[in-house]
């Protein structure tokens, strides 16, 4: 026996830490799953925005460096690409928002209904369980009352039960109403969250449009700067160069005194220069007019006006016979001024780009913050939902010991928690719940394994117990096999002694007289006492046998039963005793439901019955 207990304890000591470990692992797994999900959700939101921000940064850097290097065609191209890229990004962002919205509106609706349905079905399940419990209890009490047969107590208990049932029905109905109200409020909150989402999307669209406008403006400015102006300036430059060359050639000729030989030739050359100068003036005028039409080139136009004015002065100076060097210096100064103006224009364009960049960065920052907030709030709400689900589960588990007030209180708490949790998180709650279900299934499969293990242990114990029982019975049979012959001999001793005592003379005979023999009477009494002692010994032996589950077979006086008796002889009797055991030669014994030794008996047979056996061996 001690061995089995020890085995059981050993099994328990192995199983209990295993169970503990399993619980711990379950817990850790749950935590990790929660963290992982939160991380994934946050990443999904922030990744796209971060990527976009990085690309914008890179693009802006490119634009800036391109502007600095004055690679206008490339800059133009970059801006075009950048514009396209921004447009594409914004499109995909708004598309993502639309998809998100659509998927939410597609999924959340049914999920709410499903959850509500689940809650309702659980509630009804719980109700039917409770009703079952109550009915069972009622049956039990009915049974008890039936036994006690006290009608007043029965009526009283039935009254209690009636009230209990009514209370249960009422609370079920209340619960139903509360659930439907809850359902409505959830639907409202869903509508509200959808509206907020719509507004958010609209806002994003507006931001996108304004961004597009800024880009278009910037593009226009840049285009203006990069098309008309450079071409005109280049041409001007070229003409100024050729003018300078012509003037320098003229100056050389003058220095060599060639002109002094033919004043007509000199005059014609000067006229040629003059006509060229007029041409340049016309070009500048045209350029000025073109620039003055452009807002962005106002300052440049002003500069060119100045240039025109100075050119007129130059013409006047030339007419006055001023030196050609002074003319060259003035032209150089004019050129320098034009250069400065153009540089200022580029800087203004850069400033615009910078401003645009800052605007984009701000928007990016907003988007970042929005994504981060979104992820954080998702995580917070997920946690609160997890705790809600957990407490819901705990309450469901606690159902095994039904307590109406406890359950209703629990339902109230769940309801308020669900209200707090909000509609947009129901989907996550559902997925968490399904994960929880999965975990529960795993736990119950582990539990089943453990139960199987327990069953095996129990079976092994049972087998061992059966084997031990068989071994005990075998041992008992062995001991009984030794003891039974002693019992037989003691039976003989008692029988013989009783006969001696009965036959012992109590009277003395003298001639015709008889008288009591006091010595013989005393002897007989002593013999009787001795026989009693032997009988007690015999009884003690029978008691020892009984402790070994060895019981005597009652034979004498009962009908002959070949399953318990072995006939060792027959004796003629009258009809009434036919087939009856009339003498027990040796006592028989049973052990358990088995015959250990058949009782040896003599069976009575009447003459009539005996006659039928004539002729048979």
């Amino acid at each position, binding site marked *: 026996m001690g061995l089995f207990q020890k085995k059981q304890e050993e099994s328990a000591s192995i199983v209990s830490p295993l169970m503990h470990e399993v619980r711990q692992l379950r817990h850790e797994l749950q935590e990790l799953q929660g963290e992982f999900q939160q991380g994934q959700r946050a990443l999904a939101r922030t990744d796209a925005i971060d990527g976009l921000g990085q690309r914008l940064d890179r693009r802006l850097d490119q634009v800036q460096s391109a502007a600095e290097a004055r690679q206008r065609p490339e800059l133009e191209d970059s801006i075009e690409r950048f514009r396209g890229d921004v447009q594409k990004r914004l499109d995909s962002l708004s598309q993502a928002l639309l998809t998100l919205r659509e998927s939410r509106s597609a999924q959340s609706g049914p999920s709410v209904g499903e959850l509500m349905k689940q809650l309702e079905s659980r509630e009804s399940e719980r109700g039917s369980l409770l009703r079952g419990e109550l009915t069972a209890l009622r049956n039990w009490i009915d049974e008890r009352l039936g036994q006690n047969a006290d009608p007043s107590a029965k009526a009283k208990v039935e009254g209690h039960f009636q009230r209990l049932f009514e209370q249960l029905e009422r609370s079920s109905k209340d619960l139903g109403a509360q659930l439907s109200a809850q359902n409505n409020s959830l639907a409202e909150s869903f509508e509200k969250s959808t509206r907020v989402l719509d507004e958010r999307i609209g806002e994003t669209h507006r931001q996108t449009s304004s961004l597009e406008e800024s880009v278009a403006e910037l593009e226009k400015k840049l285009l203006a700067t990069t098309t008309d102006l450079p071409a005109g300036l280049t041409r001007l430059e070229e003409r100024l160069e050729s003018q300078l060359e012509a003037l320098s050639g003229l100056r050389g000729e003058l220095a060599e005194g060639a002109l002094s030989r033919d004043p007509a030739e000199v005059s014609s050359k000067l006229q040629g220069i003059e006509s060229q100068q007029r041409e340049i003036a016309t070009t500048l005028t045209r350029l000025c007019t073109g620039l003055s039409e452009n807002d962005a080139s106002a300052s440049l136009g002003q500069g060119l006006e100045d240039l025109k004015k100075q050119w007129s002065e130059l013409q006047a100076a030339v007419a006055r016979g001023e030196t050609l060097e002074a003319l060259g210096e003035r032209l150089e100064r004019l050129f320098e001024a034009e250069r400065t103006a153009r540089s200022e224009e580029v800087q203004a364009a850069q400033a615009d780009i910078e401003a645009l960049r800052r605007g984009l960065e701000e928007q990016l920052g907003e988007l970042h913050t929005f994504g981060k907030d979104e992820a954080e709030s998702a995580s917070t709400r997920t946690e609160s939902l997890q705790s809600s689900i957990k407490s819901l589960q705990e309450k469901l588990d606690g159902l095994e010991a039904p307590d109406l007030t406890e359950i209703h209180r629990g339902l109230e708490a769940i309801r308020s928690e669900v209200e707090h949790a909000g509609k947009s998180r129901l989907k996550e709650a559902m997925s968490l719940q399904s994960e929880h279900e999965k975990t529960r299934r795993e736990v119950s499969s582990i539990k089943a394994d453990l139960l199987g293990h327990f069953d095996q242990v129990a079976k092994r114990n049972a087998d061992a117990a059966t084997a031990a029982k068989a071994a005990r019975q075998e041992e008992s049979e062995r001991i009984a096999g030794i003891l039974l012959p002693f019992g037989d001999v003691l039976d*003989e001793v008692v029988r*013989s002694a009783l006969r001696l005592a009965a036959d012992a003379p109590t009277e003395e005979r003298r001639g015709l007289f008889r008288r009591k023999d006091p010595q013989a009477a005393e002897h007989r009494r002593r013999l009787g006492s001795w026989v009693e002692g032997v009988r007690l010994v015999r009884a003690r032996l029978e008691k020892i046998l009984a402790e070994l589950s060895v019981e005597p077979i009652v034979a004498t006086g009962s009908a002959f039963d*070949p399953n318990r008796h072995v*006939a060792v002889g027959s004796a003629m009797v009258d009809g009434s005793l036919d087939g009856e055991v009339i003498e027990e030669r040796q006592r028989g014994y049973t052990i358990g439901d088995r015959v250990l030794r058949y009782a*040896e008996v003599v*069976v009575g047979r009447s003459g009539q019955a005996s006659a039928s056996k004539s002729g048979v061996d």
Partner: protein
Amino acid sequence: MSDKILGIDLGTTNSAVAVTQDGKPVLLQTKDGPLLPSVFGYGPDDQPLVGREALNQLVVYPERTQRSVKRLMGRDEALELGAATHSPEEVSSFILGALKKQAEAELGEELTRAVITVPAYFSDEQRRATIRAGELAGLEVERLLNEPTAAALAYGVDRCEDQFLLVFDLGGGTFDVSIIEKVGDVLEVRASAGDNELGGDDFDERLLGHLIERFQEKHPDLDPKDHPKALSRLRQAAERAKIGLSSEVTFRVTEEFLIEGEDGEAFHLDVEIDRATFVGLIDDLLRGTLRAIDDALQQADLEPCELSEVLLVGGSTRIPRVWELVEEHIGI
């Protein structure tokens, strides 16, 4: 339904059933232990009884109890048992049916195929009757196997080279000697002899007579035969002594208060028997078995030296004197 085949030893006194498990024969338990008494009868309430219960009522209801039906097999005889009448093969079928049922209970499946052993000397008619008995019991008798052949197979002789063997089978109530020739994988009974009415029970009787004599040496006026209870006790004591003397050289028989005199005086038996005395008591019976060996050898036209092996089978061959005599006689 199972493809297992039962092996049934349908004996004169007792029967047994076995199956092969993992290539080895396993004896199955019956309700009466490994051996089921080959007895059938109708009980006090006309319920059919097989085995020990039937044996229990033999003394008081012999007219409706049948023992040793094997000796009647093949005879066209109607056995009246109480109100019913059965042929010997029907009675055999009841015993086979009980064995089948108990084997099924033991193995937990239905069993319908069997091999049944018969004595080598059984006639064709006796063999046919045995097959019919099997069929009546719901068994498909795959084969009848000669008892000495079964013994030879059980001892693994089939693994040796071609040879002659002698099977010496001394049971509780019958004695058979068979000579088996092994050619290749075939075992054939070449000769058989024996005594249908000789066995361990006869040795018990001799010892019982000796115990009565020893008692009367002290109490010449008392005859245990007049005291059924005393006789029963002495018969049990004789059997115990026989078994004891197979392993011990002496055996003490003590029966206290065996007989009670007219005046209530108790008479006891307390004697010691040694093995030599026991052998002396049964010497003539044992020598008779040697003659059966000679008969069998003569039938087979063999000299003792041509035998390569002798198999001793049956409970009574545990008596050491039996080995000695057979060994001396055959010379191996």
